[in-house]
Each structure stands twice: as structure tokens, then as C-alpha cells.
């Protein structure tokens, strides 16, 4: 076996992007992609707290079949807030704006993104949208469910639908501009020698995600505008009494909504490739297959939206096409899982937190993805639609998948971002808590869905109580698992041991520069001559 050179006494560089300039102006008017990543990190953590608090209150309420704490009117606002915040203000941004912003220029050998000022503007737009949205929550909230179905949201709801949709509309433009920025950056700013097939797989995933950003988000923008129009002027676009079609809304919404969930998972899959490569010190098995799978997932994701609408009275034949394509989109995801597993074979598997999060992802995403097949298949979807089975499925992929990837990535690149190490023992413990808590929260929900408990219910029949209590117990463990990293990351930023440029002995341009990096990333533009994850000469070539 060959070895990497690990530094024994690392030191902090004298000048780096964090101390190159001081004062609030240097942060709020920065165009450095790395500082913008921190601006996003702080904002989205705040939004995560709001979304997490709503979830905590929901699970507390569901301990009692008749509702422990809230009347249905309030409970309905909680689950709507939870969904809207987590999707539009946390998950959509999480990996792209924090890890993507920080890493994309560095990983491709560039000094910054293509449009740094646009990047900062994206953050301000996000903050404006989030502020308006939070104000709409504080002044009464919304109770339509995150899917805003008509005619409930346009004609019958008496809550802050208008201000909430304005907030989301604005925040959506932040994502569009970020996606545009990343596409141009990846196309035009790669260092000499950095061909497409030498790119880290995280870049492939972020590229695919960015394409979905620019094509899907405008559709939700116009759809939200139509809701606002309808709400203010009652003109009948979605009102059957005036000739409108409420199902038109669902087509428009899910045409965005389905690609949106791939916006949420593709970046995480990209992170997992990096975690597994670094955690096994091995080239990702089947690199080009994993790269192409990201692109095909993005492409097919635009053609499956009708699988959310099998029961709306949509044409059965259209449904068959949507169902078939939904099965097709599962295949590239399966290919990734198999390739990551194969990478671990004869690797050098680390037990550090990033690799543990990756292992957790591989298992949980497998379950989440396979339970998606129950819903892609029309026959079984009839009984499971709008039950807790669906809730369990999407939390397995969103939390067991996307959030595990986000946390794993934060841990892997924390030393690069701050120059310091987090406490490994606490990180492993928190990862274990998250894994156990997560499964206890959402595992029972598969059963709840099968036995018929509908989603978005504030009260439920007594025979479902035990499963609900198990789920709520799991949620309390999960919550602790999320709070612990918050504490030790803050500690680490202030007092953690110095990391050095490459504490993991990993491959990738980001590990060749100092931790924290200088403002312009590279002293000299790198010339790339080797493949991604070039840990060593290819020895065991099979097949």
C-alpha cells in the first residue's frame, strides 16, 4: 500500500480570506465566494431553526390523538410553515449556496465565480424573501400546506397566503441567479487541463442541479404570481365557478415541484461522492457512470411530475407514461448507490464523521429511494397517496439523504473553511444520534401510512397512537443530534486545533491550498494534469 503525507504540526496561514479584511462592511459588501458562503450558512441555519421548531411542535402535538397542544387551525399553520421553510428557505439553499459557493471555484481552479457581484445580490435577494416570509409567519402564518393547492389557497384560505407567496417568489430569484452563476462558472472558468472528465463529481452534481435551478424555478415563480393574482382579484384562473381549472395549478406546481426535489438531492449525492472518495482514499468506482447519472436524473426529472397527480382525474394514459418515467429516474440513483458501495470495496475506510455520514446516507437513501417505487407504481399509489407513507418516503430521501450529505460535507470541509478541526468523538456521537433518531422518527410512519393514517391530520383515531408516540420519541433524539454539532462547530471555530491544508490526506484542488484559503484561492492558476481522485496508479484494473 502506498501512503499520503500527513502534516504533523500544521499552522494557520498568516493572511487568509477570513482575516484579510475586517469590519461589517467587508462582510456585507464582499464579493468573495467564500465569505458569501458564510453569509448563507448563518441565514439558512436561522431558517432551519424555524423549520425545526415547527416540526418539534408538530410531533409534540401528535403524541395525543386529540392533539396535545394545538387546535387544528394552529397545527395546520405549523405543518405549512415546516414544509415551506424547509424546502424553500433551507434545503434548496443548503448545499448549493454554502458548500457550492465555497468549493466550486476552488475545485475547478478558479479565483472566484463568474459573476461575484451577482452572487452577493443572490444572497440579498434571499434575505429579502426570507424576511418577508418570516414576517408573514409572525403576523398569522399560512395554513394551505406547502403545496398551496387551489382553490383552497386562492379562494378559501383566510391566512397570509399573499405575503408568504411574495416571500417565496423573491427567494426563488436568488436560486435562479445562483444556478446561472454556477453554470457559467463551470463552463468558462475551469483551470487549464481541467477537462470535464477530470472534474470532481461534486461539480457534475452541482452542474446538473444548476440546470434544474434555471429551468424549474421560473415556473414556480409564475405559478406563485398567478396565485397572488387570483387571491387579490378573484378572476377565475383556478376557480371552477368561473370556468377555471384547479388541476391546472397542480400541473404548473408539480412541473416545478418534481425537479425541485432533485435540486434537493443531487447536490447531496455530489457531496457523498467526495466523502466516499476521501473517506476511502480511492477513486470513485465507475466515475463516468456516476457523472452521467447526475445529468440523466436532471433530464428525466422534468418528465415525471404527473406521478403526484395519479388520483386527480388525470388521463390514465398520461399516468402510465409518468409512472414509467418515474421508474426510469430511479435507475441512475441506484447506479450511484452501487458505485459508492463498490468504491468501499478494498478501500481504506475511515471512521471519521464525514465517512459515517456518507455510510448513513447510502443506507437511508436506499430505503428512501426504494419506497419511492411504491409511489411511482400507480396501483400501490392509490392506497398510499396522501398518507404518512409519503411523508416517511420523502423524509428518508430529504433528511436521511440530503441533510446527511449536508452535514457530512460540512464536517469534511470545515477544516478548509475555518482552518480548525471539530471534535471527532462528539461528531461521531452526534452522527449516531441522528441515525438512530431519524429511523425511529420516520420508520413507524411507513406503517402508519399503510394502515391508513392520512397526512396533515391534527387529530387521528386512537389506534394509531403508539406509532405516533414512537415517531415523536425519535424526533426528540434527532433534535439533540442536530443541536450538538451547532455547539461544537462554534467551539471549533474559536478554539479548535489547527487543521493544516489537508488533514484528511484527500485528493482535490481544495486540499492543495492553505486552510483557510487566501482570498484569491490560488497564488498561481493551477495546471491540472491528473484525473479526479488520483490517489495512486491504477493497480487492480478489472473488467
Amino acid at each position, binding site marked *: 500500500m502506498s501512503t499520503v503525507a500527513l502534516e504533523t504540526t500544521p499552522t494557520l496561514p498568516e493572511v487568509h480570506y477570513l482575516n484579510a479584511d475586517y469590519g461589517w462592511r467587508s462582510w456585507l459588501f464582499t464579493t468573495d465566494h467564500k465569505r458569501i458562503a458564510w453569509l448563507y450558512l448563518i441565514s439558512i441555519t436561522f431558517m432551519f431553526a424555524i423549520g425545526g421548531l415547527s416540526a418539534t411542535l408538530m410531533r409534540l402535538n401528535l403524541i395525543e390523538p386529540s392533539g396535545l397542544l394545538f387546535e387544528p387551525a394552529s397545527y395546520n399553520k405549523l405543518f405549512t410553515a415546516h414544509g415551506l421553510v424547509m424546502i424553500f428557505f433551507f434545503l434548496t439553499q443548503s448545499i448549493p449556496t454554502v458548500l457550492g459557493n465555497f468549493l466550486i471555484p476552488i475545485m475547478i481552479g478558479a479565483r472566484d465565480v463568474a*459573476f461575484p457581484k451577482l452572487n452577493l445580490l443572490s444572497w440579498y435577494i434571499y434575505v429579502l424573501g426570507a424576511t418577508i416570509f418570516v414576517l408573514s409567519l409572525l403576523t398569522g402564518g399560512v395554513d394551505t400546506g406547502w403545496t398551496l393547492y387551489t382553490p383552497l389557497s386562492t379562494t378559501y384560505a383566510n391566512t397570509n397566503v399573499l405575503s408568504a407567496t411574495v416571500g417565496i417568489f423573491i427567494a426563488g430569484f436568488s436560486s435562479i441567479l445562483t444556478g446561472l452563476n454556477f453554470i457559467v462558472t463551470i463552463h468558462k*472558468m475551469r483551470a487549464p487541463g481541467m477537462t470535464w472528465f477530470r472534474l470532481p463529481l461534486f461539480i457534475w452534481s452541482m452542474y446538473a442541479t444548476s440546470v434544474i435551478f434555471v429551468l424549474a424555478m421560473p415556473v414556480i415563480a409564475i405559478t406563485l404570481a398567478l396565485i397572488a393574482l387570483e387571491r387579490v*382579484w378573484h378572476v377565475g384562473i383556478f376557480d371552477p*365557478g368561473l370556468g377555471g381549472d384547479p388541476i391546472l395549478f397542480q400541473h404548473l406546481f408539480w412541473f416545478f415541484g418534481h425537479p425541485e426535489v432533485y435540486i434537493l438531492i443531487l447536490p447531496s449525492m455530489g457531496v457523498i461522492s467526495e466523502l466516499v472518495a476521501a473517506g476511502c482514499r480511492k477513486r470513485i468506482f465507475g466515475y463516468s457512470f456516476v457523472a452521467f447519472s447526475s445529468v440523466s436524473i436532471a433530464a428525466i426529472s422534468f418528465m415525471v411530475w404527473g406521478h403526484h397527480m395519479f388520483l386527480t382525474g388525470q388521463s390514465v394514459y398520461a399516468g402510465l407514461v409518468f409512472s414509467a418515467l418515474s421508474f426510469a429516474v430511479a435507475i441512475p440513483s441506484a447506479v450511484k448507490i452501487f458505485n459508492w458501495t463498490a468504491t468501499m470495496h478494498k478501500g481504506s475506510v475511515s471512521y471519521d464523521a464525514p465517512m459515517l455520514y456518507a455510510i448513513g446516507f447510502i443506507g437511508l437513501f436506499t430505503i428512501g429511494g426504494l419506497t419511492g417505487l411504491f409511489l411511482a407504481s400507480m396501483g400501490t399509489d392509490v392506497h398510499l397517496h396522501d398518507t404518512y407513507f409519503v411523508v416517511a418516503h420523502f423524509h428518508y430521501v430529504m433528511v436521511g439523504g440530503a441533510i446527511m450529505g449536508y452535514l457530512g460535507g460540512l464536517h469534511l470541509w470545515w477544516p478548509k473553511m475555518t482552518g480548525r478541526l471539530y471534535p471527532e468523538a462528539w461528531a461521531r456521537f452526534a452522527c449516531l444520534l441522528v441515525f438512530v433518531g431519524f429511523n425511529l422518527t420516520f420508520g413507524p410512519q411507513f406503517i402508519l401510512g399503510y394502515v391508513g393514517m392520512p397526512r396533515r391530520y391534527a387529530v387521528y383515531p386512537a389506534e394509531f397512537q403508539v406509532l405516533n408516540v414512537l415517531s415523536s420519541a425519535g424526533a426528540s433524539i434527532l433534535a439533540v443530534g442536530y443541536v450538538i454539532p451547532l455547539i461544537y462547530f462554534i467551539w471549533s471555530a474559536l478554539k479548535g486545533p489547527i487543521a493544516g491544508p489537508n488533514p484528511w490526506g484527500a485528493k482535490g484542488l481544495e486540499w492543495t491550498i492553505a486552510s483557510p484559503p487566501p482570498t484569491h484561492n490560488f497564488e498561481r492558476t493551477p495546471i491540472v494534469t491528473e484525473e479526479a481522485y488520483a490517489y495512486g496508479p491504477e493497480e487492480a484494473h478489472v473488467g
Partner: protein
Amino acid sequence: MSAEAHGATLVAEQFDDFEQQKHADTFGMWIFLATEVLFFGGLFCGYSLYRNLYFEAFTAGSHLLKIEYGAFYTLLLICSSLTMALGVRASMLRRPTSLTVYLILTWIMGAAFVYIKLRYEWYGDYLEGLVPGLNFAPHGESLEIINRFHATLPHVGLFFIFYFCMTGVHALHMVVGVGLLTTLLIFTRQGKVTGGNYNWVEIVGLYWHFVDIVWIFLFPLLYLIGGRY
């Protein structure tokens, strides 16, 4: 000032050279136009559905629009795209005076479009009681036309919602375009454009042509349904 006059260009620090910056800026505008296609796309999708369901109402509504205005706008925008393209050429040939003339012509036509639409066409629609949500109550000749096509009043209202939405969003984009032209005119006066940043004119040109093309689709879809007797 003299540096620009001699053709020196400003390359932002994230770029290696002017070529890379030019390609990135132009590519960025193309991607932005792709997002705009999807943005308008939602409205076209809703329009297609309701036109299919309520063809009589859409035909009636279309006959209530003032086709003379629509045709005039089409002429105006096509001419403005011509002057814009000539402006791009002038900037590439380093001719600031020609560029200024063409930009001003384009500006005038764009501003005229917005002004005439709001002051005359839309105000006229308002006076005739054709604005859903505000005062939708067609009467007199408008009502005769609706009855002639056996259209249902709420469905004609749907037509008008899409009419105002689609042309309204388009008009907003025209206003933004006029703003971009204003900025270009200022930069031209400051000598920042013909020096070497001619791709800014090309990029605004791309945007302008796109907004023009959207109108080319809107005109027949809204104003020309069912022909004219």
C-alpha cells in the same frame, strides 16, 4: 478616459483575460433568456389549456382587442430589433456616434411601445369595461360581439386575464429593456463601451431580441384568433 479611448478594457479580477470575460458574460445572458422562456412558458401553458376549452370565448375576446394597436406594436418592435442589431454592429466597428443614434432610436421605439400600450390601448380597455378584477362588464358593441360567438362571459374574462397577464409581463420586460438601453447610453457617453466592452451592447441586444420574439408569439395568439370577417 484616454485609456478607454485607446481600446484598453477592464477585465474583472476573477477572469484571466478579456476573451474569457466576454464569453462568460454572453453565455450568462443566454442562460438568463432560458429562464425567461420557462417563466413565460407557464402563462402560455395556461393560455393553451383555456383556449382549447373555451374557444368561442377566446375568439370573442380576441375580436374585442384593438388589432390596429397590436399590428403597430409588431411593426414597432421589429424595427427596434433592427436598430438594436445595427447598434451592436456599430459598437463592434467602434463607432460611438452611430451606436448612440441606434440606441436612441431603439429606446424611442421601446418607450413608445410602453406608453401607447398603457395610455391608449389599456386605458381604452378599461373604459370599455374589459378589465377582470377591476371592472369587467362588457357592454354595447363588446357585448354584441360576445353574444355573436355564443361565448360565456366568465370565460371571456379568463381570456382577458391571460391577455393582461401576458402582455403585462411582456411590457414589464420592455420597461427593463428601456432601462438597460438607458444604462448603455450613459456608458457610451462615458466611453466605456466602444473602447472594447462592445459585448455589453451584444448582451442587451440578445435581451431585446428575446423580448421582441415573445411579442411575435403573443400577437397572433391574442389578437388574431379566429381571423377577421
